[in-house]
């Protein structure tokens, strides 16, 4: 009998939203306890700052260039490698419950398995899809073909219309404002808490775990759609945090001239998006201009986001309780993380896009090894990537890292740094650097970024596209500038540092999939 594995992911959650990382707005005692008992990573970095590429990296252990999902709307090939398939082949029972998003959501032709499956049940034809024998899927509301939306419409149709519509009638990201401040994607939602998708994901996970034999080895990916926008948690829960009491984030420059001066020192698409003259990708409403964002709207968005994080924490607590009840408490490794971050007011912005800064790239990550493994808890400050999750999960299951995985096993706090010789010990060694990439091509606008992050630096090179000629970039010194407000790319005093980082960036570029996959839907 091996160790059982619970992978918990959220969607679009910032590093500073959990108490263990210093967050003070929402209470996250369950995740904080997991962190205290296990490993807490202070610099976990995604390989893409949008959902589909990042989730594909979690599943495959590959960088986006290699698995090929270069942007939302590019489906992960059906035959892509999968850590879930690896575990299933080794005898694990496997499930994915909640948000998958390896395939596009917008699918009127119902071409994709994720969308078609809910009409047929929870077991894909052939016995598994991407290695998961059981899938119960959800997205951010009550619309669409996935299991949660169907369940809500069939069992509680009175609540189905209460959610915010994430897309508008033109299938664009909805710009409509709501709540008390008119912030975009904020909405009062009268759905009862026990019918909201966060609790549904936990309920369905508990139900699946209950179906297993006590001796089964299992891998469950419990994937919450929140705290991704829309920010429409059950309104009965809004009293937890009064948005009027929420402090403005340190990354929110409070005067417009201050915001604009910071943005103007960055490559020009930052300011163009802020002014509403450019939307380079599908990740933010085209009908909303960030320059109109008010301090009150930032407070309300952050309050609602924190409420959603509290609900997630409590849902994880219920699942942990069910695991204890089954007698598995000592045998379960728990990994908690998210796919990417969110601006939430930093730089005067919301949502996400081609912006490689901590708002979107510094993620919460906790690994609580199974208590039976007797690992000493601690904190890891060296950079790690979501590309490291698949090798870690394989390692927990006692499986050797397959050649197709590009990551390393997440280091423990006492791991030997600096090994990079291909040995088994090096597989467990802390990294020097983590890579992140961005490719977007939408309606004639293309942006391509390649980023290397180290413990102290974030260096982003801009490749030639419709906005840039390839000479632009960003360079931030995290030690001096934790908010990444001062771009040192053109600072002559930092030229050698920049050149060294660029050498590292180009030297470590992953293998590119060929031929390149097509964009098949907006998201």
């Amino acid at each position: 009998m091996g160790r059982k594995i619970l992978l918990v992911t959220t969607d679009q959650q910032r590093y500073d939203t959990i108490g263990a990382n210093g967050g003070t707005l929402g209470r996250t005692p369950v995740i904080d306890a997991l962190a205290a008992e296990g490993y807490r990573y202070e610099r976990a970095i995604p390989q893409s700052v949008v959902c589909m590429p990042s989730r594909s990296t979690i599943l495959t252990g590959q960088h986006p260039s290699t698995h090929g999902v270069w942007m939302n709307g590019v489906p992960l090939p059906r035959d892509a490698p999968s850590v879930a398939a690896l575990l299933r082949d080794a005898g694990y029972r496997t499930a994915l419950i909640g948000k998958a998003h390896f395939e596009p959501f917008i699918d009127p032709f119902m071409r994709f398995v994720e969308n078609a499956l809910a009409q047929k049940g929870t077991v894909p034809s052939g016995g598994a899809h991407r290695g998961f024998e059981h899938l119960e899927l959800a997205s951010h509301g009550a619309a669409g073909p996935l299991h949660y939306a169907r369940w809500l419409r069939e069992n509680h149709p009175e609540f189905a219309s209460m959610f915010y519509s994430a897309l508008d009638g033109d299938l664009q990201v909805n710009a409509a404002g709501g709540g008390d401040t008119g912030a975009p994607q904020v909405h009062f939602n009268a759905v009862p808490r026990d019918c909201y998708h966060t609790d549904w994901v936990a309920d369905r996970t508990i139900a699946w775990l209950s179906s297993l034999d006590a001796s089964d080895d299992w891998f469950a990916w419990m994937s919450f759609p929140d705290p991704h926008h829309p920010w429409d948690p059950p309104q009965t829960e809004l009293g937890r945090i009064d948005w009027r009491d929420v402090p403005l984030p340190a990354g929110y420059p409070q005067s417009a001239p201050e915001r604009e001066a910071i943005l103007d020192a960055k490559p020009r698409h930052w300011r163009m998006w802020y002014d509403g003259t450019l939307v380079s990708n599908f990740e933010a409403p085209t009908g909303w201009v960030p320059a109109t964002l008010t301090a009150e709207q930032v407070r309300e968005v952050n309050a609602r986001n924190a409420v959603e994080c509290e609900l997630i924490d409590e849902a994880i607590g219920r699942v942990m309780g069910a695991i204890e009840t089954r007698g598995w408490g000592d045998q379960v490794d728990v990994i908690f993380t998210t796919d990417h971050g969110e601006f939430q007011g930093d730089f005067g912005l919301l949502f996400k896009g081609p912006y490689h800064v901590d708002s979107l790239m510094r993620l919460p990550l906790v690994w609580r090894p199974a208590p039976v493994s007797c690992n000493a808890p601690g904190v890891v400050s060296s950079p790690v990537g979501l590309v490291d999750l698949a090798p870690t999960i394989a390692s927990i299951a006692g499986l050797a890292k397959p050649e197709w995985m590009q990551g390393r096993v997440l280091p423990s706090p006492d791991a030997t740094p600096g090994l990079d010789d291909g040995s088994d010990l090096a597989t467990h060694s802390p990294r020097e650097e983590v890579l992140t990439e961005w490719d977007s091509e939408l309606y004639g606008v293309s942006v391509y970024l390649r980023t290397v992050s180290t413990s102290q630096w974030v260096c982003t090179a801009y490749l030639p596209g419709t906005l840039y000629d390839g000479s632009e970039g960003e360079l931030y010194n995290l030690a001096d500038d934790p908010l990444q407000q001062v771009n040192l790319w053109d600072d002559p005093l930092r030229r050698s540092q920049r050149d060294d980082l660029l050498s590292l960036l180009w030297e470590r570029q992953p293998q590119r999939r060929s031929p390149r996959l097509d964009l098949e839907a907006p998201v």
Partner: protein
Amino acid sequence: MRASVRRQIRLPLPAKRVWELVGDPSRLPEWFDGIVSATVEGSSRTIVTGGGIAMPEQIVTNDSLQRRFQYRITSPLMREHLSTIDVIDLDDSTSLVSYSADADPASMALVIAGAAGAALRNLCSVLEGNQMEPSA
């Protein structure tokens, strides 16, 4: 906002053979994954998607000399739409097939052309007698 999105593929098959399939509006479900039926009456075609959505279309061009097929979706989902399929003979027993979608709203251009791109990749195997992969 409107958009124009194109997908294309080069096939190791003569244009005449490709056109025999692509130029027949009733045979669309044979090669376009996610379209379960196509009913043609005169210059009207109604397709039904795998999601159960019925889309009325107007056939604008079906020119076997140019090997060009054009249609408009006339559903209220669209303010404007024109899709164009061209099968171009490359004179070496190969052909280039392009499928472009012009639409308002813009997202629909990408949805149609995105699905069409996958359909074009299916074309070769369908023409050579292989079945499309089921979706679930």
